[in-house]
C-alpha cells in the first residue's frame, strides 16, 4: 500500500463573488511511496498548488479519494484536518511572510509547532536549537526574520516545517524568491533531511532544474497528471516519456508533442504487436511508441 494514495481527486472552486465554477483538479490519480522526494511541475493554473493544499489538509476535496498514511483527508472535518496538520505535515511556502511570524525570533518561530504539540519548555528549546543547527541557522536563532537574508528565512521556515517531526513535507516553490546559489543550498538541506529522516517530501515548482533535485517528477497540466518520470533519466522536460493512463482509459499527451506534431482534435488509436499507436485521421502515424504503464 502506497503512503499517499490519490484517486479521481476533483477540486472545484466556487468563488463567492461570481457564479462561475472553476475546476482546479479534474480527476488526479497518484501514488507516492514513503520516503520519496517528489517534485510536481506544471504551468501556472495547472492545479499543482491546489493539489499541495489538499495534501496539506488546507483545502477540502470536492470529490475523490485522498489518503495520506492512515489519514483519509477526503472524509475529514476541519478539526480532523487541524490535528493532521499539527502532527503529520510540515509546509514551506514561497513567500517568507507565510512561513514565519515576522515579529518574533527564529527560535520562537521554530518552537511554535512544538507548543501546539504541548511539549515542555526545555524539550522545545532543545529540539528547536537542534533543528536550527540542522539547517545551519543555529548561530542566528535569536534574530528576527527581518534581520535575515532570503535564503536564511527559508531555512528557518524549513526548520519550522520540520520542528514537529512530520511524516510529510510539502513545499510550494520554496526557492522561487532565491538566487540559484541560495536555492541550491536550500535544496541540499531538503535532500539531506529527506535522506536522514526518511521523510516523504513533495515540492511544487515550475523550474525544471529545481525539480531535477528530486527523485521523481510529476507533471500536471489542466488539473490532471499528464506524465511522470524518475528525474535521473531526464535532461529536459521533453525527455519525460511516461504518460499517465487513468482508470477510465484517459491519458494526456505532453504539450511539447502536441505542439511539435500539430496534433488535431481527432486521433486514431490502433494496437499493433502489443503497442498502442496514435495517429491522425489522415493516417499520419505518431513516431513515438507509447508503452503501457
Amino acid at each position: 500500500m502506497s503512503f499517499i494514495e490519490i484517486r479521481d481527486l476533483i477540486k472545484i472552486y466556487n468563488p463567492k463573488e461570481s457564479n462561475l465554477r472553476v475546476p482546479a483538479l479534474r480527476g488526479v490519480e497518484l501514488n507516492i511511496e514513503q520516503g520519496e522526494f517528489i517534485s510536481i511541475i506544471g504551468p501556472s493554473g495547472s492545479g499543482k498548488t491546489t493539489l499541495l493544499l489538499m495534501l496539506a489538509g488546507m483545502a477540502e476535496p470536492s470529490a475523490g479519494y485522498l489518503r495520506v498514511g492512515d489519514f483519509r483527508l477526503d472524509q475529514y472535518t476541519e478539526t480532523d484536518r487541524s490535528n493532521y496538520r499539527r502532527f503529520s505535515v510540515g509546509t514551506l511556502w514561497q513567500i517568507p511572510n507565510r512561513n514565519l511570524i515576522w515579529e518574533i525570533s527564529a527560535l520562537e518561530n521554530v518552537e511554535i509547532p512544538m507548543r501546539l504539540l504541548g511539549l515542555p519548555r526545555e524539550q522545545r528549546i532543545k529540539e528547536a536549537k537542534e533543528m536550527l543547527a540542522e539547517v545551519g541557522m543555529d548561530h542566528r536563532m535569536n534574530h528576527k526574520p527581518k534581520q535575515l537574508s532570503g535564503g536564511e528565512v527559508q531555512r528557518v521556515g524549513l526548520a519550522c516545517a520540520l520542528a514537529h517531526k512530520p511524516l510529510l513535507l510539502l513545499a510550494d516553490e520554496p526557492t522561487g524568491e532565491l538566487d540559484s546559489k541560495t536555492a541550491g543550498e536550500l535544496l541540499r538541506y531538503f535532500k539531506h533531511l529527506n535522506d536522514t529522516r526518511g521523510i516523504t517530501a513533495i515540492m511544487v515548482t515550475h523550474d525544471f532544474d529545481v525539480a531535477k533535485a528530486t527523485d521523481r517528477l510529476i507533471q500536471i497540466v489542466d488539473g490532471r497528471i499528464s506524465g511522470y518520470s524518475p528525474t535521473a533519466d531526464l535532461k529536459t522536460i521533453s525527455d519525460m516519456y511516461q504518460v499517465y493512463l487513468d482508470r477510465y482509459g484517459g491519458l494526456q499527451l505532453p504539450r511539447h508533442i502536441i505542439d511539435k506534431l500539430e496534433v488535431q482534435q481527432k486521433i486514431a488509436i490502433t494496437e499493433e504487436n502489443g503497442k498502442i499507436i496514435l495517429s491522425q485521421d489522415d493516417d499520419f502515424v505518431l513516431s513515438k511508441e507509447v508503452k503501457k504503464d
Partner: protein
Amino acid sequence: MKDSSQKSVRYNLLLQNIFIVTRTYFSFITSFSKKKKEDQVNIFWKILYFIIAPIAIFLLPIFDIFLLIFLPGLHLFKPLFKAGWKYGLISAIGVTLAVAVITQYVFFIYSYQFQAFNLFLADEPRTYIQVQVESTFIQQSFNQYNSFDRISAIALNHINMTDRVLQRDLFFKRGMFTRTFDPITNETILPNIPLIGTEGKLRTYLSNNIAIGRAPENPYEILAVVSHDYYNHSSIRVNSLTNLYIPISLTKDASLYVPDAYTTVNVSGIVFLDDLADYNVLGSNIGIPMEYILELDERAAAVTWWIQGAEILQSIVMTYGLATINEDLFYDVTVIDAFHLEDEINTIKLVGVELKEWYLILESYTQVRINSYLVDLLEKFQGEYNLYQTFMYAFLSPIIALTIILTVYAANLVRKKRDQQLTILTERGAKRSEIGSYLALESLIIGGVSLLFGVLVGVPISALLTKSSGFLSFSNTTIPLQIDLASIYVALMGSAGAILLIQIVNTITLLKKRSIEDYGKVEKSLPKYYKYFVDVILIVFGVIIWVIYKMPGLSDYQDFTAKYVGIPATILVLFGSILFLQRLLPLFSKIIVKISTLFKSDIISLSVREISRYQKSFVRSSIILTLSFSLVVSSIVIPSTYQSYNTEGAYYDLGADIVIRGFPIDNTYLKAEVDALTEVESSTIVRFVNLRDVQGDLSITYSVLTVNITEYEQTAYFRKDFANKPLGDLLAQLENPLQVLVQKDELGVLNQNIGDEIAIAYRAYNESMREIIGSPFFYENMSVSVVDSYNYWPVLVNELSLGNVRSIFYHFVADIEFMDHIQIAPFDVIDYLFIKGNSSYALGDVTAKVLSLTGGTVTNVEDKIFVKPDSPRSSILFSAINSTLIMSFAINAIILALFASIQLIDKAREIATMKAIGISTNQLLKYYMAVYIALLVFTTICGLVVGYITSTMLMGVLATNRTIPPYSMGLPVVQLLISISALLIAAFLGAIIPTFSSSREEIGTELRQSA
C-alpha cells in the same frame, strides 16, 4: 497525535477536578448546617465555612470559567502576544478613548447630580407649600387661628405626611400703604406697608428680634418690620403714630381723604429686616429670610398679633375685616431624592389637593389657593436637568459611537497583519478554539489596560470638564468633581460593556475563516453596506422619525420625545448623510485629478488617484473624519445658537437690561434718582394689566402693556424683526391713550383690521362700588382703536392666541395714560421700571447700584440668562462641547496616523520601487501628503454640511420649550476656523509622522519586509 490526546486528557482532568472541588464546596456548605455536634473538627469546618467558603464560592467558578476560556490558548500566549501586542495596542487606543469618554461622562453627570439640586435649592428660598385663603373675615379670636391651623394638620395626617412637613406658620395679610415724610428727599411719600397678623413661632421670632422698642401689647400697636432703607426714607419711629390706608382706587391719593379707608396705629417697636438672621425651620438646618416668609416685596410690614391685627383691620371700614390667610408648610427638602423628582412632585401636589379638600370639608372654603414654589422649583430643575441630559446625550452618544467605530476600524486596519500571524498558526495545525481562546485572553489584557488608562485619562478630563466655562476655556469650578462608589461602578460597568462589545466584534472578525489569497487585494469598490443602500435607509428613517417628532400631538411629551425620538432621528440623519456623502468621494478625487492635471501637477494627480484605487479604505477613513468634523461643527454652532437664543429669550422675558418689578411709580423722585446715576443710561416706567372678560365658557384676556412713548424706545429691548417698522415709528402712532398696537396674527382672530375700533368688556374693580352694588367688581365697556400691528413684543407676548379655544389672549400695547381710562384693582396692575445700563459699566455693578437706591425686586438680564458664565449650567453645556472637541482632536490625529501607517505598510514595496527609480524624499512626501490633504478637504466640506444640518435639527430638539421669539442659526466663523484649523493640523501631523519616517527607510529593507 498521542501527545495531543494526552494533553487534552490532562486539561479535561484538570477542569473536571476544579469542578469537583467547586461542587464539593457547595455540597459541603449545604450539608454543613445539618451537623449538630460541636467539636474541634466542627469548629475548624465552621471557620472554613465562614471565611474560606464564601470566597471560594465566588472565586472558584470564576477561576473555572477563566480556565475553560483561556486554558486552550494559553500555550500560544507568549509568542503570539509578543508578535501581536502592538496591533492589539492600536485597537486599545480606541478602547481607551471609549472608556475615557464614558468615564468622564459618568463622573461628570454624577458630580452634577450631587451638586446641582442643592445649588438649585439655594436659588429658591421659598421651599414651602403656601396655602392662601383670600377675602377671609378675620375674627378677633384665637379659635380662628387654631381652627385654620388644625385643617392643615388633619390634611397632612390623613396622607401620612406629618413627618415630611417640619413646621407650619400661619398669618393673615392685607395690602396697605402709609403716608410718611421722607427726611432724605424732603417730601411726603406713600410707601406700601402690608398689615400682618400672626401668632406662634413667627410671633416669638419677631418679638425676640426687635431692634428698637418692644413687642405690641396694646390694641392698635404694631411692629414695623422694615429694611434700613425703608426706615431711613420714612418717619416711622418707635412710639410714632402712623396711618395705615387701604387703596380704594388706582391712585393712592383717593384713599387719603376717606375716613373709612384708614386707621391710626402706634409703632411699639422696629425690626430691621437686613439685620435678621434667617428664619430657621424646626428640625432642619434650612434657613429662610423673613422677607420671603412674609412675601414682603416692599421690604416693609406692619406686624401685630392675630387679635390685635383683626381689630386694626376691622377699624378700617373699607377692608370689611377681610384679609388673605397664609399658611406656610415647610417641606423637608433634605430628604428629596433628586433622581426621583417625579414622585416628589406628585407627593407635593397631593398635599395641595388634600389641603384644598379638607378646607372644603371642614370650613366650606372653596377659594383656597395653593402656591407651591417647591413644585415649580422641582419641575424647573427636572426640565433643566432633562435639557442637560439631552445635551450630553446628543453630543456624547455620537462621540462614543465614534470611538467604537474607530476601534473596530483600527482593528480592521491591523487585521491583515494579525491574519498573517494567525494563518501561519492555522497552517501549523492550531485550532480555532485555541486561537479564539488566545484572542479572548489578549482582549482581556488589552481591555484591562484600556480600562485602566481610559479611567486614568477620563478622570482628569472629567475634572477639567467640570471647570468648562466656555469654548475650550476653563475656570474655577462651580461643580466639584464627585467620585463615589456608585459612579465608579457605573463608569466601570459602562466601560466594561463597551470593551466587551468592541473586543467581541474584533475577536469574531479575526476568527473568521481566512484565505491567504485575499492579501493585497485592491479595494476599488465602496464598502459592502453601500450595496444595500444603508445610507439612504438611514436618512429615510431619520426623516420619517423627525416628521413624527415634529407632529403637534407629541408636544405634550417634549422632554421624553426630545431624548428618545428627536435625538435618535438626528443621529440617524447624521450617520445617513455622512455615509451618503461618501458616494461623492470618487467624483471628488476625479475632479482633483482633472484640476491637478490641468495645472500639470503630475505627482498630485497620481497621488489622488489612490482614492479610487483604495476606495474602500479611503471611504472608511473618510466616514470617521467626516463624523469627527461634523461633531466639531455642531459643537460650535449649537452652543453659539443656543446662547444667543438664550440671551434673546432672557431679554425678551425681561424687556430691558434691568427691570424693577413693583416699582413705586408715584415716587417720581426715586425715578429721577435712578436716571441721575452715571451707571444708568435711561429708564422708563412700564405698566402691565390683564383685562378679563368671561362670556359663558369663553374666557378672553386682554393683556395691555402701557409704555411711555418717548422713553420706551431708548430703554427697552426690541429686535428689528419684532415689527415691520422701527419701534419709534410704531409707538409714534399712539397719539391718544385709547389707541393700541395689536399682535399681527391676533388681528386675524379678532376679525379686525388696522384702523378698526375694538369693543372691550372687562371685569372692573372699584372699592367705592362696594357700598353701592355690594361688591367692588363690575363689568365695564370701553373701546380701543387699532393703529398698527407688531409680530412679537417683549414681556407681553409669550404665546399666540389660536381661534376656537376657550381661553383667548389678546396683546395690546398702549400709551401709559391708558391706565387712567380703566378701573382695575391696584394689585392687578404690575408696575415696572425698565432701565438701560450704561455700556461702560458691568451690568452686575449697575444692578447693585440701582438696588442700593431702590431696594425691591431688581432683576438684570444676566440673572435670566440660562447659561451664565461659571455657572453649573454653563459648565454642563460647555463640558459636552469641550469633551467633543478634545475627543475629536484626538480621534482625527489617531485616524490619519493609523490610516497613513497602514497604507504605508501595505505599500512599502511601491514606495521602495519609487525610491529605486529615483523619486526624491520631498516628492515622495508630496505624493503621499497630497492624497491625505485631498481627503481632509473632502471631509471638512462634508463635515461642515452635515454638521450644520445636524445642528439645525438638534436646535429644533433643544428649543422645544420656547418658540417666541424665533431664533436663527448662528455661524461663529472665527471659532469654526480655529477649530477646523486645529483639527486639520492634528490630522496632518497624524499623517506626516509615519509618512516622513517611511520616506527615510532603506530601500532594501522595505523591499524585503514587504515581500
